[in-house]
């Protein structure tokens, strides 16, 4: 059937159309329906594409029938079909949650704009994942970034505005760096098609423009990834954005940027060059360790739950880049599955923290910061919410039975493979830092007495709990049945890593 052939295009086009339709509808309810339908369809398409790649190998789709390398090509392999499932799946879960969640966070009259922006953001992220064209990647990056700035600015606290502005400046610098890098690559190779670039880059990568391109792309993407020390925009953005936006961004935005990093490093430049001839592995190692220890350590001392888990995200990104720096199948596979596993767990946590914020918010006041004094003794009134956060936290720690354990297993295995025992110790010790901040939450929610002035309130509403618990369930599910995550990640790593030693 002809429609099935066009799934790669529909994957991006459907969410893209849903955004202007949502604006035109001008009604919150209708806009919600349109964007949610688009997101669910996108999720179904992503699964279909993943199955297609699983059955018959990489898929190439020429946009507008212009043959690559002249036209823009959408190209699906193991890695990005996996990313599509993550991104569209998170959108499919976050959207139903948003309906109830933004009720008190965003003025009623701009709800339809919120959905339009979420649709655009989804478009950008899906486009970044699916495209096989370097400049197209930049354009989708900007689509997702611009809509993200708007989404963050929609938070009710006025600091959301400054957070969005700060992210706009840093994000635009990052994107411009990326486009400079792509420009150099284009100048040297004469092509923008990533697959076409591979052979041509091999000839010029040792030249000065080639290295400059690498440097610009590395810095630019690292800014979007929030790789410490380029992470300053992230804590404020996650803290002050509306709850569902924090969850969506934490689960997808940095992950797709990491995907772009993997794509440029392993597909375009090729690991044989990057990891053998350049001091890149050492550099990534140092930065990753810095992120793992510094950010996890800072997280322990945060009073605002959202900010705490934002710092935790920066730390977890360190694990992902650490896996990449090993340049082995196990290491890269660990990174790829941690993209997914951490995305799901952190998404669940932010959704549940959002449910807490919703309960603490009154109609009149701005949402209060979910500080430890405010959440004291909360487990009694919100048992499901708190228990869900604990399970998500266990996945951050890497307790067996949760998704986080699986990625940690492969990460440690990769370190053992390299014979670097001190790294094994570092990985495991830094995951103990996660125990400290997760247990701060446990002690506050379960053992402290509720503050005297707090009104009694019940469990979060089901419309918030069900999406969040879907993700909590996924966190446990992917800790036990890992055929999807581990299978995809290992095969993707086998396609990416050529540097078999």
């Amino acid at each position, binding site marked *: 059937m002809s429609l099935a052939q066009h799934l790669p295009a529909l994957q991006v086009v459907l969410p893209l159309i849903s955004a202007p339709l949502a604006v035109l509808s001008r009604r919150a309810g209708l806009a919600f329906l349109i964007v949610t339908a688009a997101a669910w369809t996108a999720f179904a398409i992503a699964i279909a594409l993943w199955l297609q790649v699983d059955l018959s190998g990489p898929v190439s789709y020429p946009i507008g029938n212009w043959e690559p390398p002249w036209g823009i090509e959408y190209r699906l392999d193991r890695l990005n079909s996996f990313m599509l499932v993550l991104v569209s799946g998170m959108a499919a879960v976050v959207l139903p949650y948003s309906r109830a969640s933004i009720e008190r966070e965003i003025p009623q009259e701009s709800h339809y704009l919120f959905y339009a922006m979420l649709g655009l953001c989804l478009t950008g992220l899906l486009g970044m994942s699916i495209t096989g064209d370097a400049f197209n990647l930049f354009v989708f990056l900007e689509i997702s970034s611009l809509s993200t700035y708007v989404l963050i600015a929609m938070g009710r606290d006025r600091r959301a505005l400054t957070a969005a502005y700060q992210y706009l400046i840093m994000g635009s610098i990052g994107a411009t760096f990326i486009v400079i890098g792509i420009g150099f690559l284009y100048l040297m190779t004469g092509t923008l098609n990533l697959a076409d670039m591979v052979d041509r880059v091999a000839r010029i990568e040792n030249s000065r423009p080639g290295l400059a391109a690498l440097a610009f792309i590395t810095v630019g993407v690292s800014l979007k990834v929030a790789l410490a020390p380029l992470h300053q925009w992230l804590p404020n953005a996650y803290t002050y954005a509306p709850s569902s936006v924090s969850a969506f961004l934490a689960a997808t935005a940095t992950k797709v940027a990491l995907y772009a990093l993997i794509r440029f490093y392993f597909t375009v430049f090729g690991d044989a060059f990057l990891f053998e001839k350049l001091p890149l592995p050492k550099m990534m190692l140092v930065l990753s360790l810095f992120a793992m220890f510094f950010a996890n350590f800072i997280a322990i001392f945060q009073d605002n739950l959202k900010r705490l888990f934002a710092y935790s995200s920066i730390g977890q990104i360190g694990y992902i880049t650490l896996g990449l720096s090993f340049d082995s199948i196990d290491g890269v596979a660990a990174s790829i599955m941690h993209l997914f596993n951490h995305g799901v767990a952190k998404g669940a946590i932010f959704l549940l923290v959002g449910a807490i914020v919703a309960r603490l918010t009154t109609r009149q006041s701005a949402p209060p910061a979910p500080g430890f004094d405010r959440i004291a003794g909360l487990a009694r009134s919100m048992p499901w919410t708190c228990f869900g956060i604990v399970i998500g936290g*266990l996945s951050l*720690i*890497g*307790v*067996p*039975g949760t998704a986080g354990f*699986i990625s*940690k*297993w492969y990460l*440690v*295995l990769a370190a*053992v*493979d390299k014979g670097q*025992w001190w790294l*094994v*110790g570092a990985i*495991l*010790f830094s*995951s*103990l830092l996660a*125990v400290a901040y997760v*247990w701060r939450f446990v*002690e506050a929610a*379960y*053992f402290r007495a509720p503050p005297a002035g707090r009104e009694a309130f019940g469990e979060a509403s089901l419309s918030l709990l069900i999406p969040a618990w879907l993700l909590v369930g996924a966190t446990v599910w992917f*800790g*036990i*049945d*890992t*055929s999807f995550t*581990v299978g995809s990640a*290992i095969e993707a790593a086998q396609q990416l890593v050529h540097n078999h030693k």
Partner: protein
Amino acid sequence: MNVEELILAALVLPIVGALGIVVSNRSPNVREGVTLVTAVAVFACVVQLVAPVLAGSTPLVSLVEPLPGLPVAFRVEPLGMLFGLVASGLWIVNSIYSIGYMRGNNEKNQTRFYVCFALSIAAALGIAFSANLLTLFLFYEILTLITYPLVTHAGTDKAKHGGRVYLGILMGTSMLFLLPAIIYTWHVAGTVDFRPGGILPAGLAPASVTVLLALFMFGIGKAALMPFHRWLPAAMVAPTPVSALLHAVAVVKAGVFSVVKVVVYVFGSSILAGTTQWLIAIAGFTILAASVVALNADNFKRRLAYSTVSQLSYIVVAAAVLAPLSTVGAALHIVSHALGKITLFFAAGAIYTAAHKTEISQFDGIGRRMPWTMTAFTIGALSIIGIPPFIGFVSKWYIMSGAFSAGMLSVAAVFMLSTLLNAAYLLPIVHRAFFRPPRHDDHHGHDGHHGEAPLPIVIAICITAAGTLVASLFPDVLIGLAQRIGTGGAI
């Protein structure tokens, strides 16, 4: 039901029971009825496994495969059988005891208590029946997490602090040492299954073997090897039934069980030969040092906790001696110490419930008011000290025979000395309780005229004491199981 279904039933029933407990939250009688019925049903499942295992079969059940080639799988072999029997059997008794204790002391959050208890038994059985290191690790961590709410049950600052130490040490050691040990085993051996004779390749360098052994031994923090023993005294803030079943039986025995299992089924005696001296030294030191601390502790539960630390190292030493006889002794000691120590803890809880006394110096003449409790205590104490013909003597006998056969006289010396210390910290309590007149200056109102503890407590304590006697008189099944360890027909 066939054997595979029995294994799964034993693991699933406590979880079902936990659900039943949650549902019957409103009615304490139904809730505790559910607990008891579940406990009996689980024990019935486990008991039915004994005959096939004695007959030499080691049934295997494989569930899911979280990592390629690494399934969550269960295999019942003699050592796990012993541990499973002890944990599930004593759960019944402990449930009877809990009813008396929790009601007698008007504890809060009793539903949470019973739920966590049922789930910890499921986790302990998961450890007992685990077929590979991954499964063991999975249930090991679950057991740590699920017992955390029990340790911090009181919710006070002291309980919170105890919980921190408990979780910090158990999580910390398992994450920092046990997990890399498992991953390294997988890396060098290509499997983490438990197999008789071990799985490590014969060519592994002695230095690597030593490091790996150290990672395992300190990684299994539940075995309470010094210097990672402090979680056990810290866990004593929990209600006494928790201390009794979990911190004298399920949790700590899960630790030493894992130690024996790793030594016998992962390393195997041939690859370890000559590399375990340091371990014997550390465990020997733990035996003596913990006994000395116990000698000086006036708090009853603290004394018992340090006694447990010391007794656990008996089993570590027994495993490290590597002689077949001492392995039999190790398995027997898991049983004998469990029966004895749970009786002692029951006595501590009985005294606390009836008289609200926690310090040994307050126990003068208490035996006359609580004759059942203190008689049972005496039986448990004699077994732990290792007086013939009690089962504690049998297990020690096997361990020491093994040590002699391996020519390790120093081990025998440590055991002699420690037996004396055991007697020195347990017998004075008996003496105080029965032969000293009650002191009258410490009577404050209500606790002046207490009698025996509530009936469920007395029943439970008599059952465990009787259990000790029965095991002492008829140790054949236990010895039969213990002798089959490491020889089973596992692939």
